């Protein structure tokens, strides 16, 4: 896959925009998934993913073709997510109460939209709660946990994506796992 990507990147560098479309096709699901787990919101995840691909296109000349493209792309995406988390106002969170509606959170609003069979709702509720717990992690732990367990990347790759020393990545993963363990214990 990396080989095809390299070929496409060379075409993009020559100014062929259609070749970039194929790159987007190859990575869109992965990027949007990482963003979703980082942000906990589908809409925002799509927004940030689009932004990530556009930035990748604009800065494609700075990409070193001998390196792994996905690492570079994930770096752009995770950095955008972290920026978004930091800028985000607290009342943006899904579990925050919607103003003027007592006891009603945005989660209940989302769930009211889709009519799904019992089982699916249950598994979705579980997934939502897990997602909620991931989103509750401080962003420095969240990014490593998402990259390690959702994208299944190696510690070395994570350290390259986040520009962090390997030791720091390990420490953050340990602490992130501990934090999640405590949060998920009752589930």
């Amino acid at each position: 896959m990396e080989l095809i990507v390299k070929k496409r990147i060379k075409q993009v560098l020559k100014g062929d925009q259609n070749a970039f479309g194929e790159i987007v096709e190859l990575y869109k699901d992965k990027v949007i998934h990482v963003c979703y787990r980082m942000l906990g919101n589908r809409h925002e995840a799509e927004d940030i993913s689009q932004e990530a691909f556009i930035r990748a296109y604009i800065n494609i000349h700075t990409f070193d073709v001998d390196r792994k493209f996905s690492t570079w792309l994930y770096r752009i995406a995770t950095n955008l997510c972290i920026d978004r988390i930091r800028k985000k106002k607290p009342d943006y969170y899904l579990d925050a109460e919607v103003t003027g509606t007592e006891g009603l959170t945005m989660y209940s609003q989302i769930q009211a939209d889709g009519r799904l069979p019992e089982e699916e709702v249950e598994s979705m509720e579980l997934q939502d709660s897990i997602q909620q717990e991931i989103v509750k992690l401080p962003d420095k732990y969240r990014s490593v946990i998402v990259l390690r367990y959702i994208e299944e990347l190696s510690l070395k790759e994570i350290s390259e994506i986040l520009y962090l020393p390997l030791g720091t990545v390990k420490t953050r993963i340990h602490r992130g796992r501990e934090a999640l363990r405590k949060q998920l214990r009752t589930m």
Partner: protein
Amino acid sequence: MNTCPDKMVHYMHEYLDEELSHEDEKELKSHLHECEACRTHFHELKRTIALVQSTSHINAPQDFTEKVMNRLPKEKKEVGMRRLLQRHPLLAAAAVFMVLMGGSVFTSWNDGNEFAFTKIENVVVDGQTVVVPEGEVVEGDLVVRNGDLRVEGEIKGDVTMINGDRYMAGGGTITGDIEEIDQGFEWLWYNIKSVFKDLGGFFQPNE
């Protein structure tokens, strides 16, 4: 749990990162056998990972790529053209054909290719060749453009050939200057020179 050494939790994490040495792993395992609190801790960690990994993958919406492509800055036009020609070789061939056709149409519009010569009564035209027949005498200058000249008689004056050849028959003579011009540029140069010659004659009328 507090009675257990701190390093046990550290071992657990190293184990999960697949970085625990074989000896330490043995130590961890034997400890887990004895200590229920640590066993629970370890179990919870593994369960946490399993739960995080159980979340289903979400996919990008159908129109995602299209949306991204629409938001990209515009590409250079020449690239689009080049890609179009690469994808459709027939179109490229047609384009080349049009260029060549256009070129030939252009030159034929340029009336410079037509056969022409100075109108003199006693010369004969044979196809693209101007013939001065034997015994005839041409009084004055002769210009032949895009044709040949065959001199069998006599020309009392200058001869100018543009894009053509000059053949001299046995008895043929030309008393004036002979100039042969092959290209458009030289033709232009010849025109400029003749203008100056005229001017020169104008300024020195006494000579």
